[in-house]
């Protein structure tokens, strides 16, 4: 287990994290606590890293169908440093601004990472959302066609970032659903 001194974080670091992220003081300290519990012994929190599996199996992300994409987008070189975890929590916090959330949502939903959300990405997204083994092909195609007809403004069968941004700005549920309360804080 990690070193568990509660106030190992210096006050200046705490102030800096508050200025650079959307998290409140309590949230940062909560995350710091849990990070220390999970990281390997003997390292300070600034150097320790968590693996993608460890972050995927956190209670906040455990049942999320997009947890592998979330881990992929927010990690560097397949590991999570403390600041990566803070960055992730900041994007998913309640106080984050819509443009930041839309930006990261686009990256998460771009499964093949080509800078656009195309039909392949949409297909994988729908399969993950429905989470069933037998989705009829025509249902899938119908849904994808409806989504594209609503948001693909230039008719190229892909969603560029501006089209996605436009669609999410009109969506009433996006801000409410793209939130995670990390670690019961």
């Amino acid at each position, binding site marked *: 287990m990690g070193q568990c001194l509660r106030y190992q974080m210096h006050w200046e670091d705490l102030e800096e994290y508050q200025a650079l992220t959307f998290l409140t003081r309590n949230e940062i300290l909560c995350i710091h606590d849990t990070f220390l519990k999970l990281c390997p012994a003997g390292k300070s929190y600034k150097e320790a890293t968590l693996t993608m599996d460890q972050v995927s199996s956190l209670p906040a992300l455990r049942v999320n169908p997009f947890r592998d994409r979330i881990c992929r987008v927010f990690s560097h070189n397949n590991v999570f440093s403390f600041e990566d975890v803070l960055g992730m929590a900041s994007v998913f916090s309640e106080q984050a601004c819509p443009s930041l959330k839309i930006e990261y*949502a686009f990256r998460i939903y771009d499964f*093949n990472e*080509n*800078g656009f959300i195309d039909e392949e990405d949409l297909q*994988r*997204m729908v399969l993950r959302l429905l989470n069933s083994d037998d989705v009829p092909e025509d249902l899938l195609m119908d849904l994808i066609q409806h989504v594209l007809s609503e948001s693909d403004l230039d008719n190229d069968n892909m969603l560029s970032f501006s089209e996605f941004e436009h669609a999410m700005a009109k969506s009433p549920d996006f801000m409410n659903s793209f939130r995670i309360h990390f670690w019961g804080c």
Partner: protein
Amino acid sequence: MQENLSLDSSSFSPAVNFLQELPSYRSIARRRTTLLSRDKQSGTLLKPADSYRSHLEGEITENLNSQSIRKYALNISEKRRLRAIQETQMKYLSEWDQWKRYSSKSWKRFLEKTHEMTRHLELWREDIRSIEGKFGTGIQSYFSFLRFLVLLNLVIFLIIFVLVLLPVFFTRYKITNSTFVSIPLKDTDMQCTVYPVSSSGLVYFYSYIIDLLSGTGFLEETSLFYGHYTIDGIKFQNFTYDLPLAYLISTIAYLALSLLWIVKRSVEGFKVNLIRSEEHFQSYCNKIFAGWDFCITNRSMADLKHSSLRYELRADLEEERIRQKIAQRTSEETIRIYSLRLFLNCIVLAVLAACFYAIYLATTFSQEHMKKEIDKMVFGENLLILYLPSIVITLANFITPIIFAKIIHYEDYSPGFEIRLTILRCVFMRLATICVLVFTLGSKITSCGDTTCELCGYNQKLYPCWETQVGQEMYKLMIFDFIIILAVTLFVDFPRKLLVTYCSSWKLIQCWGQQEFAIPDNVLGIVYGQTICWIGAFFSPLLPAIATMKFIIIFYVKELSLLYTCRPSPRQFRASNSNFFFLLVLLIGLCLAIIPLTISMSSIPSSKACGPFTSYNTTWDVIPMTVTTFPSSLQAVIHGITSEAFAVPFFMIICLVMFYFIALAGAHKRVVLQLREQLSLESRDKRYLIQKLTEAQQDLRGQ
């Protein structure tokens, strides 16, 4: 989750390669503050290379002043460097600019800290968050709505308290050196001031309980009801506090405040509903991209969310198919369907009329028999007669949704529309019953068989203090509603859960199953309670305080019932939809509450035996009387504003402004359509050119 497609990223189509090199793509990516470059071998997104990085920083530092660092989509170490750059930049600014920047930053930090602190003060924050995690955002929005109503009632009570109750209490308990003023009445009105106090002879014990439950007897004289405030003014040292005016102003103030607060809260939902295109009620984009609640932590809740998404998406596609089928109806079928719908709507109206007539009869019967000797009746019979209108209303509200649900099957609407129409009919039914009750009372108060009505304007023999009696009816409705909610939870929900848990071997119990939390019914219940509170607050100033307590207790009762007896429903309400629906229903309730209040305030003469308005003809007369005490120039202005010479031109100007905005909106719509067409044409050109370029490249390589 099966993903048959592997991440073979080196085989991105050439089109995508070119698209990523276009200047438009790059400038948008720079605006998002990271440049995405692809590593051609592994296909992963790289962080910006160093040469790009300095370019990137150059771009960003130009805009640093306008955006806060947090909003950049970079990781923390990069943000740290940006912050350092920003601070070195500060040195090159003048003193004034530095001070401006510093003060705006500290102001923002101060605002954030206050927001954080007020968020801690939010009522029931932890409870609502845990409900959200376990049952989803639809049910959580119900509890947020309940919390909003608690706050609204508290503020209404504070308004009434400060304007009316506080001066009266100060004077009564001699806290300030003030006296009551009472204006003697004209002789002709003396007969109207006869107010028989209930007999204080041999009083049985149970009459206390009856009094508590129905507001009669010892409660009638207390500050709970309108009749207690028979005061024409309060004389302080320097001025006279006009209590009738304050009473009327408090009523208008709480109605206006409720209206403004509800409209403010619903502005977001309404804006979104306006932007949405007219064809779909719910957009697929919203359901797919914002369909998953990221705050779900529970495995069973996650499974439920998956199945509810499956259900919802299938239902939407089904609805689409039905709509297409409807559009293809022949004219014969259309005529048949419309005549059937007309007939069924007549049946609905007949059912509503029957219910309203039943309520009218019950109210009349109850009012007539209440005047008989209470001591001679049996306890149960007494209570039954007192509560007869409430019982009939509750029964009607129980039976009619079942009838409406049966009828709507034959009307052949699409499923989504069916649900909405049924809910609208139930809402109207529930709220109109209160209006019918109040109008029945009103008709009884102003009708008299003989000539006594001309004397005082109302039925003075039966209703010497009619406002108190209306207040008592509202009080009874509220108490009965509260008792029913508690009784249903205790005697129906919990036993059902016990039966399902312990006797699950019985087939019948298995079929019946565990209860689901039915959001529309619960919302209608609390909107009904709030409508009663709005109507009753004029006749019974302490009613909002009772409503606040009632809603607080209901919150805990419903929360316990939800956590211990309900299973999550497979058909989930969306939060955005729910919020709009709740506030719409509340607004309908407010409008239906304002109607009886305005009629009673302006056309029924106020009672001469009790209350603050004894020296006025009707309640509304306070305002013209007060205006006559203003200076003559102000009086002239007010007379000018309320005259026809002002109102008609004002109305015409408002109509012109409205037509202008409608024309503007139409013009914008046309421009948007044209731009969309142009956009798709441009994109076709772009793809054509890319294709030509790719072919040319291949030819070049082949040669």
